[in-house]
Structure formats: structure tokens, C-alpha cells
């Protein structure tokens, strides 16, 4: 049913891979500066595969925080994945086995979700495998290189790659927003709300994970209430 191939998945993963490289490079570098042995950031990237949660987690661990505090913080930051996972689940093709779902779940990140969800075809295992493997290689590779030779890499290149993920997000949001008024209003509303929440001192403390989910979910809920999407403009 689905025509998406492994190769397409892998190709779609390239911008994610590059963006991840710069973020995880910084992650590896910072972890070493904080005094962790190299295996800690690498093991974290290999087993966690999530951005903000890892940064926050190791930041707390560097200060020898209580395990319960670290676990709760990471859980709160990652709560947004529940909605993304639910969303991806709706787009999976019919023959997606439990085993493959268990593997795919590990690869649901903000960026992989964003790319997967914009495909018009149903998502098949081979496409998701390509997309996740390409992105994951950038994430793990960046962590290792950042940890091993963080100080040797030119900061200018790492800085320039920092825009990759945001540029990709813009390329995902803008085309549908310029075609659909509800999408444009939802995107604009969420952007404004997120900026406001990030500058108000008290609100900022609830953390970036919550701000994203509150702004995103609230604007989407308003859109769904006032302008329910019809089947034909899928």
C-alpha cells in the first residue's frame, strides 16, 4: 500500500542527521567539560536518543542531584512524546507488527515525528527504519566526536549547523501555512505564545518541554474547535 522506501526514509533523515550532529556534538563536549567520563554522554545518546532530556539530565547529574529528581525532570520534558507517538500511530500502515512498533517507538523524536507526519502515504517499517537510522547515526556520531575532540573542531562550523533543525522546521511549517488559513493562524499563535511564555519570568520556569506542549496543543485545540479539518484537505 505504501510506496515509501528505505532510501527515501534515509534521504529525508539527512537534514535531521546534520542538525543532530551539531546538537549532540555540543552535548558530548559539554559533558566532558562537566567532568563526565566519555562513556556517560555516549551511553546516554545511545540509549536515550532525546535532546532536551539528555542535556537536563546530565546537567543535574553533574551536580550530583538525587536520582528521583533527575528521573522526574526527564519524564516531564519527555511527556510531549506521548502526543507525537499517538499521532504517528495513526499513520502507520496496517502490517506494522508489535515488534516493529517497539523499535519505532525508540526513534520518535521531535524531528522524526515532524518529517514522518507530513508524508501523505502510510508509514511502513522500512521507511521509518531509514529515517530513524540516518538521524540516529548523526546523534550518536556527534556525541562521540564532541566528547573525543570537541575542542579541536572549528566552532564556526558547529555554530552554522545549529540552524539546521530550525530551518528544517520552517520548511515543514511554511508551505502548508501559506496554503491553509487555520494552519497559518495556529502556527503564528503558537509562535507568539511560546515567545511570551519564554520571557515572562515565572512562566519560563515551567521548562521548555512544557511550554512547547502547552502552546502547541492549545493552538491546535483551538484550530480543531473553530476550523475542524475536513477529510479532503488531507
Amino acid at each position, binding site marked *: 500500500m505504501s510506496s515509501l522506501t528505505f532510501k527515501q526514509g534515509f534521504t529525508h533523515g539527512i*537534514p535531521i542527521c546534520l542538525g543532530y550532529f551539531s546538537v549532540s556534538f555540543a552535548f558530548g563536549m559539554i559533558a566532558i567539560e562537566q567532568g563526565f567520563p566519555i562513556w*556517560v554522554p555516549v551511553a*546516554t545518546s545511545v*540509549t*536515550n536518543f*532525546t535532546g532536551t*532530556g539528555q542535556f537536563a539530565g546530565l546537567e543535574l547529574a553533574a551536580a550530583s542531584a538525587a*536520582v528521583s529528581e*533527575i*528521573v522526574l525532570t*526527564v*519524564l516531564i520534558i519527555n511527556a*510531549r*512524546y*506521548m502526543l*507525537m*507517538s*499517538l499521532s504517528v*500511530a*495513526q499513520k502507520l500502515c496496517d502490517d506494522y507488527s508489535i515488534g516493529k*512498533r*517497539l523499535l*519505532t*517507538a*525508540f526513534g*520518535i523524536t521531535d524531528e522524526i*515525528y515532524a518529517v514522518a507526519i507530513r508524508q501523505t502515504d502510510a508509514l511502513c517499517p522500512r521507511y521509518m527504519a531509514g529515517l530513524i537510522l540516518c538521524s540516529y547515526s548523526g546523534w550518536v556520531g556527534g556525541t562521540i566526536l564532541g566528547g573525543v575532540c570537541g575542542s579541536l573542531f572549528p566552532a*564556526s562550523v558547529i*555554530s*552554522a549547523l*545549529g*540552524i*539546521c*533543525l*530550525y*530551518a*528544517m*522546521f*520552517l*520548511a515543514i*511549517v*511554511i*508551505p502548508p501555512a501559506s496554503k491553509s488559513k487555520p494552519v497559518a493562524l495556529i*502556527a503564528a499563535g*503558537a*509562535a*507568539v505564545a*511560546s*515567545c511570551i511564555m519564554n*520571557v515572562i519570568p515565572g512562566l519560563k520556569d515551567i521548562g521548555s518541554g512544557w*511550554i*512547547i506542549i502547552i*502552546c*502547541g496543543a*492549545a*493552538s*491546535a*485545540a483551538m484550530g*480543531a474547535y473553530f476550523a475542524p*479539518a475536513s477529510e479532503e484537505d488531507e
Partner: protein
Amino acid sequence: MTGYYITVVGLMALVSYLPRVIPIVLLRKKIENKFLLSFLKYMPYGVLSAMIFPAVFTSCANPVSSAAGCITAVVLSFKRLGLLPVALISSAVVFIVERVMAVL
């Protein structure tokens, strides 16, 4: 210390995986509710916008190069370039702007 690290990394992995795995494994039925379908359809755009702004302005070495990269990405996205060209050209612009600023 090694024991503490292993515990922390292992538990972090668990709480990173659980929110992702529970919905995708348990909710195998297709959703029919129109509000919920619309909500799920719109959510990526709301979530992505909230992720982009204001974080994009601190994504590179300084706000000026970040803004230059952001504007480049917006213009190219309106021109319907693909994800990879938008990402690469925006990175190149950031790189050039930062080199120019270093000279000035």
C-alpha cells in the same frame, strides 16, 4: 560514581522510552472523532512553531547570524525548496554572516 552514572543513564533511558512506546503500542485502533483527528492534524504545526520561536534566535553563535539563518529559511521555504536545501543554505548563510562579523 560509576554506579550512580549507570543508574541515572538507565532510568533516563526508561523515562525517555515509556512516553513514546505506550501510545504507539496500545492505541492500535484508528481514531474516528473529528475533533481529535483535526487536533492531531494541526498539532505538528503548533508544536513546531513553539519549538522554532524563540529558540531559533539562540541556535547559533549570536542573535544576528541566527536571525539571518532564520530569515533565509523563511524565504526559501516560501519558495518551496525541500528540507535539505533549506537546511544547508541556511547553515551556509549563518557561516558567512559569522565570518563577515568576525572580520568587521
